[in-house]
Each structure stands twice: as C-alpha cells, then as structure tokens.
C-alpha cells in the first residue's frame, strides 16, 4: 500500500498541471481524458509513489485535490 493517496475532483480540475509540476515524486500526470468542461484532467500516473505529502493540494488553484496518508501500522 502506498503511503499517500490523492483524490482528484475531476469536475473541478482544469488540467493546469501545477500539481504535476509540484509533486516531488512524479506521481501525477495530465491524462488525455477530457472532463465535461473540456479540460484534460490530472490523474495519478504513479500512485504507488505518493507519500501523501500534500504539496500538490497546496498548489492546486481549484481546490480539486484531497490528500490522504496511510495510517501507520500499529499506531
């Protein structure tokens, strides 16, 4: 299980790519998929690498990202 996870609200995402630029681990990519507003939305290209650091969400201009971190085992 990856350490982190990002939930992308596809209808909010405008495919600006700032999250992609920001993610230090190359998790996110812009997909060729259009949303209903005609934008190519962000998606997790490499979900396994996500640390749940939240940096992507801090940069997202559309508040389209929620970030979660795996509960540490034993905690």
């Amino acid at each position, binding site marked *: 299980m990856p350490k982190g996870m990002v939930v992308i609200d596809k209808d909010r995402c*405008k495919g600006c790519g700032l999250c992609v630029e920001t993610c230090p681990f190359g998790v996110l990519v812009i997909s060729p998929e*259009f949303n*209903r*507003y*005609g*934008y190519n939305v962000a998606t997790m290209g490499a979900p396994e690498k996500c640390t749940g650091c939240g940096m992507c969400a801090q940069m997202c201009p559309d508040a389209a990202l929620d970030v979660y971190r795996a509960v540490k085992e034993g905690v």
Partner: protein
Amino acid sequence: MEIGVIFAGFGGQGILLAGKVLAQAAMERGFEVTWLPSYGPEMRGGTANCTVVIADEPVGSPIVDRPQILVAMNGPSLERFGPRVAPGGMIILNSSLVKEPSVQGNARLLPIPLNDIAQELGEVRAANMVALGAVVKVLGLFPLEAAAEALAKELGARGREKLLEVNRQALWRGFALA
C-alpha cells in the same frame, strides 16, 4: 433570405476565426453579413461561440435564436445550441470529441471527425477550417474559393501566411465530406 450560423466550442478551437472567415467570404460575395461573438468572462469559462448571419437584405438582429446551421466543436456546445437549431437545419458535429450525440432536436446531424482530419493534415488547430468547409458546402451560397480567399486575407493580417496551405486543405476536406 437570412441564414444564421452558430459556431461553438472550447476556447482555443478557433471558433471566432471560423465565423469571421465565413462572414468575410459572404461579404466579398455581396451578401449582407453580421458576426457576433460571445464576449467577456464567458470566454474564460473555456467556451466560445459566435453567430454569423448571411442575408440578402440588411441584417436585423445579429443574434440568432434558431440557427440554420450549428457547428458544434464539442459536447457542451451541442447540448447548449443543438436544441435551438431550426427544424430542417443542420448540425455539423465534431465526432472526434462527441461520440454519442445526446441532443438533436429536429435538425439533421452531420458528424465529421474534425480533429482527426486536422490531425491527419498535421495541424490539429485546423479543425475549425474543416468545419468551415462543410458549412460552405451546406450553405451552397458561394464557392469554397471565397472562403479560401477570405482565409488568406485573415491569416495575412495576422502574419500567419505559412498556415495557409494546411488550412486550405482543411477547408477542402470539410467541403468534400459535407
């Protein structure tokens, strides 16, 4: 005679230009024309549209409630303007982006894979001219050459002459397919 054409799509699809070239061509061939764009922040919503009216008398309203022709370059445009097309009118639909057209009204539907054709021609941004070629055919008011000339003028004014050839081809492809 008064014919309304609406071009609609995403911003960046060359909607306003296609309309303008049509208006210009019609004007040069002696028709009365108007061109009216969507404007203001609406355009920042990521969509754009424009309305061209071609007539043989001075045009009253440049706003067209029931267009004879709709060019729907994407899904939302089809949803928004499709139902308004006049009975017996024509919807030129970008089937590259809209696979399963949902709305249709009483109009005839002419699906053309605008993006794919443009891609084939090596310039995806020429999808608008493919559409325009089809419009000119459907209209049947003047030869495609009129549109090609108007296009040349417009590209010239913008210093984009080198795009002329591919756009010309796009026009022809659209014309041929309609």
